[in-house]
């Protein structure tokens, strides 16, 4: 059984409100990936469409996309695991290829969050957890991550300023990423200025600046078996390790509130499969839907001991020049978070880094990269390790 590679990547710009339909949005990421892979649509054996369906008006988008993208009559289907949908899509593509069923598979992630009105979106937000036992209390995503932030601060002495430092880092790179929705600089002083929007309370201890923005966007990965990858691609990026896990949706069913068990379990699986460890990772993309999520990712992935994440950001070790660069494309905090497209965008960033095509965001000669993509509040977790060889 041969290896599996990513031979093409694409993403649309992430924007507040995409001026087109979902099929047109998907086309943008798809076209870039097909052109990047230098193949034709006829060479794609199957497509996997990834999104969170609560934002879709279209029932079963896979069929609509396959038609619009010229992927009939090949099989197409839909994969959903909230914000980690397209990493789960990559996992499915790997399985389809490794099994020998298909040679080349397209993983297409998208979300048009502006497809529904703001009040509809608010209503869905309230149903983003256990609708029987949690939502009736009036819950929201930021509040759940805020509960983790509170517990992390209590146990490890992490401060609101440490979290703000993560946002400042994100903005450093968001400014140089032309696909990002938020491209303005952010300074620590904004978080202590009551007049500044960044300091506004959302769900204590998280503030506006600790939260990523909704966005519309699409991403696409072209995944191929070893034979096709070697024949077609001058710079295939190989899938070295994949991990995935799930956890109780209701917080009452969990025991850990200073980290995400799904990230710890998925990363352990991925490291083992790849035969590498945290010190081998040269560049990483982590799921920073909120600043606390990146802080916990440092620790859950083994870049720092539990509680040691704050030292990484204080010492700027996760900046581009640091020992373990993280989210040097601006992360979700700057790029925006179009749910189903996010994982594909993270993977695209690592693929470009490993091909040394990341332009101003490039870290020096990375060999191995890691993608950490979380669905819900640690409900689903995917970790993917990619390499040049």
């Amino acid at each position, binding site marked *: 059984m041969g290896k599996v590679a990513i031979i093409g990547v694409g993403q649309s710009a992430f924007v507040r409100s995409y001026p087109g339909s979902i099929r047109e949005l998907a086309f943008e990421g798809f076209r870039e990936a097909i052109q990047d892979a230098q193949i034709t649509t006829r060479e794609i054996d199957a497509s996997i469409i990834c999104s969170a369906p609560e934002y879709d008006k279209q029932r079963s988008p896979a069929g609509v996309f396959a038609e619009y993208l010229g992927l009939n009559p090949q099989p197409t289907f839909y994969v959903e695991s909230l914000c980690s949908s397209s990493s789960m899509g990559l996992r499915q593509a790997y399985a389809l290829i490794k099994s020998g069923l298909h040679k080349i598979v397209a993983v297409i992630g998208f979300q048009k969050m502006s497809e529904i009105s703001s*009040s509809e979106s*608010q*209503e869905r*937000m*309230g*149903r983003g957890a*256990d*609708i*029987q*036992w*949690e*939502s*009736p*209390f*009036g*819950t*929201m995503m*930021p*509040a*759940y991550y*805020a*509960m*983790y*932030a*509170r*517990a992390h601060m*209590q146990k490890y002495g992490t401060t609101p300023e440490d979290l703000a430092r993560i946002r400042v880092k994100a903005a450093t790179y968001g400014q140089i990423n032309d696909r990002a929705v938020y491209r303005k600089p952010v300074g620590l002083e904004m978080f202590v200025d009551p007049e500044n929007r960044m300091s*506004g*309370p*959302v*769900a*204590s*201890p*998280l503030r506006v600046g600790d939260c990523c923005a909704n966005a519309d966007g699409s991403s696409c990965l072209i995944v191929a078996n070893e034979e096709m990858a070697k024949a077609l691609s001058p710079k295939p990026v190989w899938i070295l390790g994949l991990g995935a896990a799930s956890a109780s949706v*209701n*917080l*009452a*069913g*969990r025991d850990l*509130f200073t980290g995400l068990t799904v990230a710890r379990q998925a990363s352990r699986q991925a490291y083992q499969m790849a035969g590498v460890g945290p010190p081998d990772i040269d560049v990483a993309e982590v799921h920073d839907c909120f600043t606390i999520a990146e802080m916990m990712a440092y620790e859950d992935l083994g870049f720092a001991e539990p509680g040691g994440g704050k030292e990484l950001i204080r010492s700027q070790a996760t900046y581009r020049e640091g020992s373990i660069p993280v989210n040097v494309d601006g992360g979700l905090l700057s790029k925006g978070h179009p749910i189903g497209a996010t994982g594909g965008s993270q993977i695209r960033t690592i693929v470009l880094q490993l091909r040394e095509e990341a332009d101003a965001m490039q870290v020096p000669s990375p060999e191995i990269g890691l993608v950490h993509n979380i669905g819900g509040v640690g409900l689903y977790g995917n970790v993917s390790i990619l390499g040049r060889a």
Partner: protein
Amino acid sequence: MGSIKEMDDRFKKFGTVSFTSTTKINDFIDYLENGQVMGTRCKVCGLVFFPPRADCYQCLASNMEWFEVAGRGQLVTYSKLEFAPVGFQEDVPYCIALVDYGDYKVFGRIAGDVPEGDIQIGMEVKTVVNRVANEQFNYVFQKA
């Protein structure tokens, strides 16, 4: 239409806004109306559940007995919301929280009359039934 009228939809009375009406553990609502917050325990294998459930994943039996969430628990973590989803805006600000009772945990709200300055992780609380608007019920955590 008759069958719809007869459907047991008591659970629609849970919380400020309930998103569920039909469940096999609807007696939870009757207990709430009587001032009790209840979980379930599997009569076959003894596993304890909160929130309550009708079916046991450990032994696959559907044979539960009710127990009361009584005594003191410890506050695990909390957050004060300054924004709320549709249907909850009138309640802002409010704190959601998680409480550990040892054998199980309870997710809910901190009682509105607990001053924020008094809230601390590790503090002892009790879970009490709370009547909200429109004949709806939930439960909240009070200082023990």
